[in-house]
């Protein structure tokens, strides 16, 4: 099946890759011979997969994630594993145990995260396409910061089998590329039902983008253009939305009142899920190995203290706390009610509009080391987490620059309206290119 070989020796000046396959096998199919990079939290048979964590250094998965298997069947050449924030926890890729990735647009800045390596590999022309994962914006943020296209599909559209879980109820694997057509081609290959992931729907994606936005109604939530959003970024995005109006779309102002709870609901939920998911990393079945002479708990603690970075330990502890007796009702239960409110707000708005648009990120890419305080880093996810809480599709497409750094236009759609989201992004891209 994989009878050919692609030579891949990139000049990785951005530290985008954690592992490189110098001779990448490929076969026949829709993506035959195309170099595709895969984020390092997606299992690849025979290729080291670490989630950018010391605790998984040396781990060689014995099986492929479903999305990777589909890539191989489509003839793609898997050329390497990309850097990320450890286990996907971060917005800059600085939380990698193997050093930060640099932004190809300005190497003094972060590429965004957590799929920063995938974004830099695409933006730096090392690969044509890459897989990322998006739990609270981890595809769209680096796409916006590096000036490429990235999409979080509807929850359930792409199998999570073989994705090393961080927050199952929020995360999706999705495509990243330099243009909407390539994002669409990659989604065609990876979407569909998988019997190994019971949350997948039988909704294959067979669409080819068409430049169709005429007559569509776009909601513009006031929260996406208000406090906390750099007015220069908001201005660039408003201009882009003006282009969509010129193409025949109509816009209407709307509001997502639950936005005031959304970020807290997101961080409580993902930390709680992480505290459970990451319990499996004890160094016994994979990883550095535990000292078998010590007691279970002692050896477990030693391995985890040495193997996990500060942000991972912080989220595991926060989640453990939020789920602990006496606090569950205050944090986890309330977060789930807040999440329902976010869903209800989107449902209400989508009964009146076809799409929702706004900035992907409230600012341009940060300087390396700029966000040293965890809470200020969390706050920068405010515009991306609502789509994950609601499970709806969302894309980021480059729409201009502020201080020579790219800005992303975010377009969100109804559940399983991935096609329409892609068409709107395509219409914009075709109009400006």
């Amino acid at each position, binding site marked *: 099946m994989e009878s050919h070989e692609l030579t891949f020796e990139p000049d990785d000046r951005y530290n985008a890759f954690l592992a490189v396959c110098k001779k990448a096998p490929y076969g026949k199919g829709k993506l035959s011979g195309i170099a595709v990079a895969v984020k390092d939290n997606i299992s690849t048979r025979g290729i080291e997969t670490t989630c950018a964590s010391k605790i998984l250094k040396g781990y060689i998965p014995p099986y492929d994630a479903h999305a990777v298997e589909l890539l191989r069947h489509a003839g793609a050449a898997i050329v390497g594993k990309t850097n990320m924030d450890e286990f996907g926890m971060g917005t800059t890729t600085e939380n990698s145990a193997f050093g930060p990735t640099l932004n190809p647009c300005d190497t003094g800045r972060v590429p965004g995260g957590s799929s920063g390596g995938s974004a830099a590999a695409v933006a730096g022309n090392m690969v044509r396409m890459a897989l990322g994962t998006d739990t609270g914006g981890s595809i769209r943020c680096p796409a916006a910061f590096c000036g490429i296209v990235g999409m979080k599909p509807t929850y359930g559209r792409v199998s999570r089998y073989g994705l090393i879980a961080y927050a199952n109820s929020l995360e999706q694997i999705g495509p990243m590329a330099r243009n909407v057509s390539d994002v669409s081609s990659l989604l065609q290959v990876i979407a569909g039902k998988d019997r190994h992931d019971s949350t997948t729907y039988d909704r294959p994606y067979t669409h080819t983008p068409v430049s169709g936005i005429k007559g569509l109604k776009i909601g513009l939530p006031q929260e996406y253009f208000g406090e906390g959003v750099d007015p220069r970024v908001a201005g660039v995005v408003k201009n882009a939305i003006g282009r969509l109006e010129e193409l025949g779309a109509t816009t209407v102002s709307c509001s997502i009142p639950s936005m005031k709870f959304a970020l807290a609901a997101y961080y409580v939920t993902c930390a709680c899920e992480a505290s459970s998911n990451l319990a499996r990393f004890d160094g016994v079945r*994979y990883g550095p*190995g535990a000292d078998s002479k010590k007691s*279970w708990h002692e050896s477990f*603690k030693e391995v985890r203290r040495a193997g996990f970075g500060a942000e991972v330990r912080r989220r595991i502890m926060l989640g453990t706390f939020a789920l602990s007796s006496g606090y569950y009702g205050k944090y986890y239960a309330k977060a789930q009610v807040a999440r329902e409110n976010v869903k209800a707000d989107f449902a209400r708005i989508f009964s009146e509009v076809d799409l929702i648009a706004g900035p992907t990120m409230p600012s341009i890419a940060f300087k390396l080391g700029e966000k040293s305080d965890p809470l200020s880093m969390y706050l920068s996810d405010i515009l991306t987490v609502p789509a994950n809480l609601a499970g709806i599709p969302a894309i980021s497409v480059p729409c201009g620059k502020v201080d020579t750094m790219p800005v992303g236009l975010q377009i969100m759609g109804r559940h399983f309206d991935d096609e329409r989201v892609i068409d709107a992004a395509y219409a914009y891209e075709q109009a400006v290119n």
Partner: protein
Amino acid sequence: MVTEKDVEHIAELADIGINTGELDTFTHQFNAILDYFDVLDLVNGDTTISRDLINTMREDVVEPSLPREEVLKNAAAQEDGFIKAPRVM
């Protein structure tokens, strides 16, 4: 408001391992983050809407699994074809 003692207790529950030198920073950060989470107190209601969701069930059928050597190859310590774990008792 959580104290250093609370953080130590949480670290114990999570088997995360914490150095005394880190306690001050973690406690300080937790309090900033938990203060922010207090916005959830403004959310009305305690229970989520129940939805008409159906579980995806299947028969428990035995299927081929990975060969033993494949499964063992990532374990740092093994003995007689088993993964060796720290002592439990």
